[in-house]
């Protein structure tokens, strides 16, 4: 009887397409909103995750998240290096100076100062120039999006000058840094250069970035560092989560997105579920005829489920395709760069749609099961 189920489904093209599009649209809306939400949250940890060599971040105990750094004494670096299990430890400066261009444009910027000797944390993806050129005097690297903010309308080029706190930085490279949460330019420079871009030079140490020796668990190392130095030590992924959770707790982000996602969920559920339920109700007379002709209840249930899963799968596939296409285009745009369709949201949306379909089928099937086949004798 499967082919009867399919023929019933496809017979009314308009209703069939309506069903498929209801599910596709809800899928798209859900995947789109949850992915953007996840992408924006991840941006709060961009600068942490971009330092791919770091395993442990050490900071002032009162620092809660990346953008809230309290300076440590310069001696902290040596104290961390003295902890057994540390293979190497380097300093990292984070500042928020205002950068000006000779043409009069200015923008608050995120500056990362890298260890002069090793340049640990230098941007890996370069659009122009190379990160090794940071060794040149007064050199800075600016990210592509930041370049367009500082030099609007100008083509990407090296050699431009930025002035910060009466100090000059010469652009020697343009990077593709991960997008930060706020749309500030992302600058990289040597530590000794960067500290001068904002205020005085001493005791500006923001973070000590650590790599562990072989054979020591990172959590063990963090505990040791804290015990020995009194500083806060976090594994890289823990620190990234700290940032994400800080923003979740302290901003309107979850509420705003929560509302959109809830609306998408409710509208999607109601529209998709209702459309399918009505589809079955409209076909009750046909189900009744089949029932009278001796089609058993389990067979009728199988038919309804087959119809539900057919439209569900096609709709979900279409919606996911639409979402993928959306991000395929949007991730090329500067403001939405790095925000992609992630499998977690696809899985989440898939589970939601499965639930909707199961619920709608359950309600529809109940109507079919309690259906009195005698009604078909009535006109």
């Amino acid at each position: 009887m499967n082919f009867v189920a399919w023929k019933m489904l496809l017979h009314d093209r308009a209703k069939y397409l309506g069903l498929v599009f209801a599910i596709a649209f809800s899928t798209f809306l859900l995947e789109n909103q949850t992915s953007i939400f996840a992408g924006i949250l991840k941006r709060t940890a961009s600068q942490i995750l971009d330092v791919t060599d770091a395993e442990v971040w050490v900071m002032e105990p009162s620092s809660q998240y990346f953008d809230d750094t309290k300076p440590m004494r310069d001696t902290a670096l040596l104290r961390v290096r003295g902890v057994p299990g540390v293979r190497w430890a380097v300093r990292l400066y984070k500042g928020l100076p205002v950068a000006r261009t000779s043409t009069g444009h200015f923008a608050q910027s995120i500056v990362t100062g890298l260890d002069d000797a090793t340049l640990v944390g230098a941007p890996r993806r370069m659009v122009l120039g190379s990160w090794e050129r940071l060794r040149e005097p007064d050199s800075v690297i600016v990210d592509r999006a930041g370049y367009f903010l500082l030099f609007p309308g100008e083509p990407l080029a090296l050699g431009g000058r930025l002035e910060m706190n009466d100090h000059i930085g010469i652009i020697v490279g343009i990077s593709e840094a991960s997008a930060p949460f706020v749309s500030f330019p992302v600058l990289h420079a040597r530590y000794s250069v960067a500290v001068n871009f904002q205020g005085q030079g001493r005791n500006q140490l923001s973070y000590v970035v650590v790599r562990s020796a072989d054979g020591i668990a990172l959590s063990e190392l963090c505990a040791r560092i804290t015990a020995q130095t009194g500083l806060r030590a976090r594994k890289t992924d823990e620190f990234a989560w700290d940032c994400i959770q800080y923003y979740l707790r302290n901003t309107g982000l979850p509420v705003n997105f929560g509302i959109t996602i809830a609306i998408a969920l409710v509208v999607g559920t109601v529209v998709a579920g209702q459309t399918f339920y009505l589809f079955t109700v409209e076909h009750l007379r046909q189900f009744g005829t089949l029932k009278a002709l001796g089609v058993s209840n389990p067979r009728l249930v199988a038919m309804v489920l087959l119809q539900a899963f057919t439209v569900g799968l096609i709709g979900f596939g279409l919606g996911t395709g639409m979402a993928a296409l959306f991000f395929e285009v949007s991730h090329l745009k500067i403001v939405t760069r790095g925000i992609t369709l992630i499998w977690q949201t696809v899985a989440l949306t898939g589970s939601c749609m499965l639930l909707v379909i199961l619920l709608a089928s359950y309600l529809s099937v109940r109507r079919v099961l309690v259906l009195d086949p005698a009604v078909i004798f009535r006109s």
Partner: protein
Amino acid sequence: MNTPAVRCQNLQKHFGEGDTRIEVLRGVDFTAMAGQLTFLLGPSGCGKTTFLSVIADLLECSGGVVKLFGRDIRSVPAAERVRFRRANLGFVFQQCNLLPSLTATENAAVPLLAAGARRRDAFDRARELLTRLGLGDRLDTLPSRLSGGQQQRVATARALIHQPRLILCDEPTAALDHRAGEAVMELLAAAGLAPDRAVIVVTHDTRLLHFAHSIAKMDDGRIVEVATRDPVSNQPGPALS
């Protein structure tokens, strides 16, 4: 030869309870013999459709006994009742109740498919039967493209295809003109009857009575009159009085 296909005794059926309670069947005694075409007449609302539904086991009766071919189907377990209905009953409804998404062939094949027949075999049988019923050039047509008479012939084919022992028809010719009605009745009489098979037809159309071997008149939920053809000259002939 003279075994009853359907035998009902003191059949009762009511709908609703209390103030809204309606007694529809008030003790129906009825017999339809195998090998015969039995007509059921009666004014609108007297309970004919309800009665057919009870015989078909599509509706539970409130009291009394129904025996199909000597067997009280209410004593049979539910799952087997579905199988029994599938194997032994065929229906022709006033509204053809064809599935609009299926072609004539597919519609006619539904009872075989429901019984688990292979699709190829079922379609072959359906095509053969429809061709015999004069629909050879309409095999792959959807019901919406068929005339009322053609639709009812497809529905008749659906009732006949699995060669059920009992065919129940509720005003099968009501929506047809006289000639199309005659054609459907001829089909039922020719292909639906055998010494061990029976057809029961509810109708208002007295012009068709010459097909009947036996006529039962129903009024107000009871059988009020039965007329039978002479069993010796058991031929289609002029209407019974």
